[in-house]
């Protein structure tokens, strides 16, 4: 996957860190100190459509041939997460119990075009 730069226009991963102290949540979330709420942004023109990140491969080449042949019928291609991982939280619930849980698919590691 590609990380967004200052003036990226193509599909890339935009990093965004939420510091729990900044939003006043550090008293009930014990760990971690923040949440990497990265997201995908950018364009997916036809020539990169369907390539998850940089994972070009044989089947991508075949896909490109098919797309080139049917360019007129090309459907929209969107910039979406292609790899995600859980967010592990240790927090106090409203009865001051200590709860640990791993919330699946909360952190985007890479983006690509559908």
């Amino acid at each position, binding site marked *: 996957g590609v990380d967004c730069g200052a003036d990226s226009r193509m599909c890339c991963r935009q990093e965004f860190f939420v510091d729990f102290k900044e939003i006043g949540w550090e*008293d009930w979330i014990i760990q971690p100190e923040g949440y990497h*709420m990265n997201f995908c*942004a950018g364009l997916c023109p036809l020539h990169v459509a369907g390539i998850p990140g940089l994972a070009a491969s044989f089947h991508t080449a075949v896909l490109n041939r098919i797309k080139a042949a049917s360019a007129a019928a090309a*459907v929209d291609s969107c910039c979406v997460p292609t790899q995600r991982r859980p*967010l592990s939280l240790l927090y106090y619930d409203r009865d001051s119990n200590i709860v640990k849980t791993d919330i*699946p698919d909360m952190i985007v590691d890479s983006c690509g075009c559908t």
Partner: protein
Amino acid sequence: AGARPAGCSPCGVAALAPGPRRDALLALAKQSILAKLRLAARPSVPQPPSRGALLSALRRMRAQRSDGAAGAGGMLREPARPGMGLQEYEMLSFAEAGSSTSRSVHLHFRFSQEVAGSTEILQATLYLFWAAPGPQPITVRLLQPDVAKPNVTVASETRLEVQRSGWTTLDVGAAVRSLFGQETPRLTVELEVPEGWGSPLPSDHSDSHWPFVVAQAQATTPHRVHRR
């Protein structure tokens, strides 16, 4: 930025100016975390347990794990295979001191409705520290509110012959599991000793040997991955 294909549903923040964009993203992060924890709002300021009790509990849990003594906290259900998308929870609940007499003491363990309402208990273990210097008979009763009557019913009763001071564990999985379906999931434990034996527990709440329950739970509905 730029024309976006009609089929892609963006989250809409990319087009905002930097200031409002940051605020929108922070609001989105809060909403996303609270939704995944099934919380309507962030919990109020917690009353954390004493540092001594917390360290003692974590040490005890680790010792229990390394002993691999699954018997004491027998699994009620095998956890789902990893990658099943079923979110798992581990809860550490310290006792609230309830009513007491010269022969008995009540301890309450509360579990939050948010977690209780959307998970099922895999395993739950009660950790008790006996301060008794020598052998002492103790009866441990698990009480739970009876929906039909105002008082409580005895879910289970265990008679122990404590030989010396130290930690002991009790499997309370079935009792906690049956609580999780109720309005206020609260487990009450009654400890009773013969007349004149004095309380078997440490003297006060701040003691680092305060009773606690460790419960493992698993979400009942698989986590849905929304692809846009």
